[in-house]
């Protein structure tokens, strides 16, 4: 297998992009990444998108986006794993380059979620859960994560008031980080009190515990590390040290432990083994905080904090920009926005910027090894990548 480098990344400001179409926002991000890498052609394209068919009535994205990017007749594929579609697209592109099939690959992600109303968007997102045995009986995504939250609180016997503050702190921290990210959907500070008094969505999760609905795209250019060193010297190369992916039961009910994200642990363990690293070697991470409870469970499953202690670590500031293990310096899904298929690729954009020392006001002091964790559904799939500045 060849070592694979990230030689260019790109994303635009995310949000409610009424005036732009899916193909517009994707091509804009893809061109930014190609310009960042100084390439004018690509050999193949992988685009993560959860459900363009339900959001805009359009499938067959591989051809559509290769065409509008001016790259036909390259091979192109849409990759889907619900909210982890972007991360899985990165993994497909990494495999393509590592195996020597293609040299220059564009991995992207896109979702245009605001062309439909809130009810239709909620329905589209819920197709990532089990339609027949969860959604039929009235489950929603906030509801599934709320059940994870209540199971977690009970399992670890955390007093509710303390648990509520731990959840709130995830949102407070990620909004504070997003305030420093010009591409974030929300450029707004929130206080613990605002989070804890926002509208209840599914007990105990409130509106400000939830990531928003977003239009957005992101892209990255991959090539063999040797080629990056010989031909693409604009940036110091960022190497993909490892890729790990795993699945778990689609239905939350069928997990052995409802309060634990096993697929995240398994994907991370594969990645640590491939990179010959351990959790302590990771300087910072971008993780899938679709709901505040998700970030707490994820940082435990990644091995950063003891199981049951992720909330305490968050309250103590360990995951803040100046903490021992900064999490979601970009603002995370919570503040940067969550255009589902694009999220996993935007995590790579942030990690590359941090590793290259180009993260502006949110630049981390210690940023040599970064990890991304992108998760589908209520935890039924997870993709983890580890990146290293070389």
């Amino acid at each position, binding site marked *: 297998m060849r070592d694979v480098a990230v030689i260019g990344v790109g994303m635009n400001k995310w949000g409610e992009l009424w005036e732009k179409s899916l193909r517009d926002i994707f091509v804009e991000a893809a061109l930014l990444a190609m310009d960042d890498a100084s390439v004018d052609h690509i050999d193949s394209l992988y685009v993560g998108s959860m459900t363009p068919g339900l959001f805009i009535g359009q499938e067959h994205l591989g051809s559509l986006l290769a065409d509008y990017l001016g790259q036909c007749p390259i091979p192109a594929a849409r990759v889907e794993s619900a909210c982890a579609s972007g991360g899985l697209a990165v993994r497909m592109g990494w495999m393509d380059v590592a195996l020597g099939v293609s040299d220059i690959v564009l991995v992207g992600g896109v979702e245009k979620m605001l062309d439909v109303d809130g*009810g239709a968007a*909620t*329905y589209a997102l*819920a197709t990532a859960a*089990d339609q*027949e*045995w*969860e*959604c*039929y*009986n*009235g*489950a*929603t995504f*906030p*509801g599934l994560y*709320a*059940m*994870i*939250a*209540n*199971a977690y609180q*009970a399992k670890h016997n955390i007093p509710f008031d303390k648990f509520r503050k731990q959840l709130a702190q995830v949102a407070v921290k990620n909004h504070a980080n997003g305030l420093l990210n010009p591409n974030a959907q929300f450029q707004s500070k929130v206080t613990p009190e605002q989070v804890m008094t926002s*509208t*209840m*969505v*599914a*007990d*105990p*999760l409130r509106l400000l515990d939830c990531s928003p609905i977003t239009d957005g795209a992101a892209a990255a250019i991959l090539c063999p590390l040797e080629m990056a060193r010989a031909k693409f010297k604009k940036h110091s190369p960022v190497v993909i040290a490892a890729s790990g992916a795993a699945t778990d039961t689609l*239905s*939350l*009910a*069928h997990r052995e432990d*409802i*309060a634990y994200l096993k697929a995240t642990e398994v994907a991370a363990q594969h990645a640590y083994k491939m990179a010959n690293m351990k959790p302590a070697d990771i300087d910072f991470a971008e993780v899938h905080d679709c709901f505040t409870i998700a970030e707490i469970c994820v940082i435990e499953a990644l091995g950063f904090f003891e199981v049951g202690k992720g909330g305490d670590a968050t309250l103590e500031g360990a995951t803040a920009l100046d903490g021992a293990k900064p999490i979601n310096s970009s603002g995370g899904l919570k503040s940067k926005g969550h255009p589902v298929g694009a999220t996993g690729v935007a995590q790579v954009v942030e990690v590359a910027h941090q590793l290259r020392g180009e993260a502006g006001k949110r630049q981390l002091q210690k940023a040599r090894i970064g990890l991304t964790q992108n998760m589908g559904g209520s935890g039924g799939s997870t993709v983890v990548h580890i990146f290293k500045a070389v």
Partner: protein
Amino acid sequence: MMSSITARYWREIPQRYRGEASKSKKTGKTYFPPRLVEPKNGNRQFEPVKLDYEGNLITYTVIRVAPAGFEDQGAYALGIVELPGGARITAQIADCPLSDVKIGMKVRVVFRKIRDEGHEGIHCYGYKVVPA
């Protein structure tokens, strides 16, 4: 909200109306809905069984923002219930004040209307749980 596909609704009647499940001949564990392969051991030998209808609530939430088709049901409790044999179901918790719902409570599976579908208001049935 896409309406249920007629064949899909009809196909799931044995589970939704009668709790038909499958029991592994290898481990004795009950699976709901029935499966063709048992996770982890590859067993394909099952016998049909009916769900044992009394179990424990292992987690829950109160859905305050209801999805399409459930808007008129206001806030409702939704939980995961573990039944004897190890089968777990996701179901609404009915006939119980929301403030009385607690993890660990004993519940019983009952046949109920789940929602009315589409402009015609066709009744869709299935299971909910109530305090045992």
